[in-house]
């Protein structure tokens, strides 16, 4: 079953548009949603959750049309936009007491266990929590009402490496039993190398690629060569950088001739992102 199915999402703003955004997340997996700042990650997430009115497209969550079953879906989807940044002058306890009334499946024992695990003090005001704690608070809320799908917008940005690592471990633990699926956006690609099963890459409002992580990375090759070799492959490169020894450039694996003498390596996600964004600069 698909936990999330986004089909041909279009949304036009004056300066920016989402163009035919489509991707699928299978139940029980973690999908990393990557893209540079302003690439459309948050807009896509907000469109999925009906927070912005889309021009066209269809969104299904847990097998049901989201808009038609909005209330039911919101009961079983947990989402967080960064950390808790609402009613910051109120105590955690007070905010939780208000929130839990909304959910049929609120489990106080689960909530308490996450508070303990995250070392969250209920008597603190939200403003007194660190950024990492705010993210954890949001997660504790999302996990305590039995969410089957977690949609998290940049949950790791602003966290220190230890907190990030803990969070990623938690994500993996959550999906272990195959019931919970997670979509999380980030621009910190090393997070995904640690824990994502699938990668969806958005650039300038368009999905460049959405596939299983290894497959995603293997679709590209990072080439290293001298200037004469650059001329050979220049037209096939996604983009390249010149340096004193020659060039480094990204190419689609299918466009690369493995019999050539050019040194080819497996890129990492960050390199893929960087060369794709460079493509625009080169042709503008």
């Amino acid at each position, binding site marked *: 079953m698909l936990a999330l199915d986004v089909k041909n999402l279009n949304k036009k703003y004056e300066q920016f548009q989402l163009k035919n955004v489509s991707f699928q997340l299978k139940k029980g997996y973690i999908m990393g949603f990557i893209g540079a700042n302003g690439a459309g990650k948050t807009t896509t997430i*907000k469109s999925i*959750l*009906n*927070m*912005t*009115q889309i021009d066209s497209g269809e969104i299904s969550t847990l097998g049901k049309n989201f808009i038609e079953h*909005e*209330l039911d879906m*919101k*009961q079983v989807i947990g*989402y967080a*936009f960064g950390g808790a*940044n*609402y*009613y*910051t*002058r*109120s105590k955690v306890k*007070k*905010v939780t007491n*208000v*929130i839990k*009334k*909304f*959910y049929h499946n609120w489990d106080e024992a689960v909530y308490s266990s996450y508070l303990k695990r995250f070392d969250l003090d209920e008597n603190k005001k939200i403003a007194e929590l660190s950024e990492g704690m705010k993210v954890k608070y949001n997660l504790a809320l999302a996990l305590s009402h039995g969410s089957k799908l977690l949609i998290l917008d940049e949950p790791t940005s602003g966290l220190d490496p230890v907190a990030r690592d803990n969070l990623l471990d938690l994500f993996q633990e959550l999906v272990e039993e195959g019931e919970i699926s997670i979509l999380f956006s980030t621009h910190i690609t090393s997070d995904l190398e640690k824990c994502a099963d699938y990668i969806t890459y958005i650039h300038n409002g368009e999905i460049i690629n959405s596939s299983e992580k290894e497959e995603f990375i293997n679709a590209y090759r990072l080439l290293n060569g001298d200037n004469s070799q650059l001329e050979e492959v220049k037209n096939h490169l996604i983009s390249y950088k010149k340096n004193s020894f020659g060039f480094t450039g990204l190419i689609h694996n299918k466009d690369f001739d493995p019999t050539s003498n050019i040194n080819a390596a497996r890129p990492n996600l960050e390199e893929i992102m960087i060369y794709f964004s460079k493509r625009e600069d080169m042709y503008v």
Partner: protein
Amino acid sequence: MYNLLLKELKLGVSPFFYILPFLTGALMLIPGWIYFIVLLYFCWITVPNLCGTYKAQNDLQFSFMMPVTKNDIVKAKIAVIVILEFLHIVVAVIFGIMNTQLYPNINNFFLGPTVGFWGLGFIMFAIFNFIFISMYFKTAYKFGAPTIAAITGAMLFAGGAEWLGIQNSMFFDLFKGSNSNNLFIHLPILFAGIAIFAVFTIIAYHIAIKQFRKVDI
């Protein structure tokens, strides 16, 4: 919707705004004053502060994160306004009754706290709600222009009613003359006021949900 309303009353509205009606209501004890002002304090103080709090506390995103629809959010916010308006009127009425006991023989230059006067109060709030609600939900965070427009509408109505009470002999007779204690005339005015309040607020709600649907949160 009920949970959302509870959320508004517990988190969104500062306890100060539940006390304010008593502070402003006590102004009903000033003899011969312009009593519309007592109700107008709600428009001048509570509404912009309430909206400012929503904006500062990122309320829109918070509300939308709950399992509710956009219509529920509009409904709950309007319900809060209506509840607070009723609180202002009810408390003012109590102080108004004390006013009539304290000063039984006073000749009010402006409209006194008669039963019908509260009907006019409801109409004033009806005008305020209609303008404010139908403008505010275009963005659901910009409250300056909607508040100013709605207050202007409400004050023009109050000013007009006071002017009629001074200039028009029939109106004078109704509110300050021989008919000022005639419940057969005053009660229908009160009920008509409440009916107008309900109709205007419901129409404003329908305009608001149409506008709020287009708002990107």
